[in-house]
């Protein structure tokens, strides 16, 4: 197992002057962003503002042309591969839920356990008491205790999203990246998701990318607005919404 990120300098994530271009188009343009430990941060921005590219840089899927990305003070994200970054403690939930439909909720969580992943180790592996407890804990956080024996395919859209968040939690990540968690959810599911994300902040740092402004308002203390690959404004929802530049480019008035 890798060491936890060193938080001595106060932040869990440092993105500094990150630039990514695709065929001349700058998806990220000198982006600088910091995230505090235990913080719940919402990132908003129009399509093409660079939200997904930013997530890709943090998780190692895309390498920037310039700039730096550090996880805590000592872990250089640009030097690690995707699985290494996941193991270092950064979990990412993709927009489209991809749980294992044919496996039960329990089994989905089991496969997401941190630990050895080789074929023969898995062949002889049984769950320890601590691991069973962890699964139970995550089931109750994600409100899926009653569905634990059901195949994931029988879950509602919202429940699948929670299960996927639960799978991330099994790896005990320090930083969670969540891409559009409430897209396609019913109002009740949206409300439940807000509670879930709020309960995760504190123990984890959570970065949420979302379009739904009502939802962002209901959960966010700190909001970052991205525009054309860099940070346009940062602050509370009220501060951001009253910012003249934000009103012009994003809120459209």
């Amino acid at each position, binding site marked *: 197992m890798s060491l936890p990120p060193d938080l001595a300098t106060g932040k869990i994530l440092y993105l500094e002057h990150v630039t990514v271009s695709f065929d001349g188009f700058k998806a990220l343009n000198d982006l600088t962003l910091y995230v505090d430990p235990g913080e719940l941060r919402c990132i908003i921005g129009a399509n093409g503002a660079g939200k997904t590219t930013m997530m890709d840089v943090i998780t190692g899927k895309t390498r920037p042309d310039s700039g730096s990305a550090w996880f805590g003070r000592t872990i250089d994200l640009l030097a690690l591969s*995707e*699985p290494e970054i*996941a*193991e270092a403690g950064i979990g990412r939930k993709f927009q489209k839920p*991809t*749980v*294992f*439909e*044919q*496996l*039960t909720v*329990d*089994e989905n969580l*089991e*496969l*997401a356990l941190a630990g050895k*992943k*080789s*074929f*023969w180790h*898995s*062949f*002889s*592996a*049984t*769950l320890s*008491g601590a691991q*069973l407890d962890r699964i139970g804990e995550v089931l109750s956080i994600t409100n899926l205790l009653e569905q634990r*024996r*059901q*195949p*994931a*395919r029988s879950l509602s859209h919202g429940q699948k999203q929670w299960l996927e968040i639960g*799978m991330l939690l099994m790896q005990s990540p320090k930083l969670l990246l969540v891409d559009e968690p409430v897209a396609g959810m019913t109002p009740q599911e949206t409300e439940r998701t807000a509670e879930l994300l709020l309960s995760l902040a504190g123990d984890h740092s959570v970065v949420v990318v979302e379009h739904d402004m009502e939802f962002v308002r209901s959960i966010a203390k700190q909001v970052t607005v991205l525009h054309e690959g860099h940070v346009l404004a940062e602050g509370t929802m009220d501060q951001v919404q009253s910012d003249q530049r934000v009103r012009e480019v994003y809120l459209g008035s």
Partner: protein
Amino acid sequence: MSTSRFFGPGEAGPNATTDRGGTVFLAIVALVAVGVPVLNQFVPSSSPFHLSPYAMTLIGKYMCYAMLALAVDLVWGFCGILSLGHGAFFALGGYGMGMYLMRQIGTRGVYGNPVLPDFMVFLNWTELPWFWYGFDRFWIAALMMVMAPALLATVFGWLAFRSRVTGVYLSIITQALSYALMLAFFRNDMGFGGNNGFTDFKDLLGFDLQAGSTRAVLLAVTAIALGLSYVACRAIVASRAGRVVRAIRDAESRTRFLGYKVETYKLWLFVISAAIAGIAGALYVPQVGIINPSEFAPINSIEMVIWVAVGGRGTLYGAAAGAVLVNYAKTVMTGAFPEIWLYALGALFVLVTIFLPRGVVGLVRRQTS
């Protein structure tokens, strides 16, 4: 709390506690292992309960096919690897056994050469090719019956899975592999008897292959091997490794993202499957008395997939039952109307795919629930 109780009955897949179909299957196999030799050896041929040597050989053959179906189901049913080349692993195991049996003939061959099998003498060869060394010893030959298919699967699987060849492309190259091997084995100078292959076997471990008692023991051994193969496959699919494998089938890149080395999982499963297919082939050869390159024919590998589809993929015992059912139908139909068998097989595949996506097992489960 134990793992098996924790992962109690879920409709989604195999679970460690209740495997009723598997228990029934193993009971039937045990019954065959004991009953068939007894009915053949100890019940007088005047009795209506006597089982003819022909029927016993047929049952032995079906059980080898059932083992082969287990091997195909392990990779296709649980990991989505549609191999159209398992006939090659079966044939390689069979050739391993054939080489041992050829060396056992010794001076009893037509040419009476103590070392060289007849076909080599016929080709005017003067010494044994290096790859025939050691095949006069059973333990070396037995090792090769498993290792040759496993090694081929390792090399082939490593190349294919590492390059992320999946789906229909993988099926096509497995088919090509089998076809290429067939062409190679047809050649006389390969040193495997060309298109005639190997036949006229005399004895196995000193026991006369024509003797009824030897054949009865062979049948019992085949049944035991089938039972053990089932237990091994079952242990894999009911373990966490089995759940990872099904996860790969359903969402490969997601599994990779969780930190599992998808290629390694596929490779192990493919190699284990090939080894089982090889053992099935090795047991098949002394019972049918011949092995030749037609065992590599692509159509054979396609038929195996049909057995599994008919029985119900992803159930193991269903695949084995499918192999027996389809081959029994084949025996009956090729006897009565030989010209329509291939049409019937094709129609069966189409009908099962459309109306019984979960095979006969799915049908039975629907009736009982």
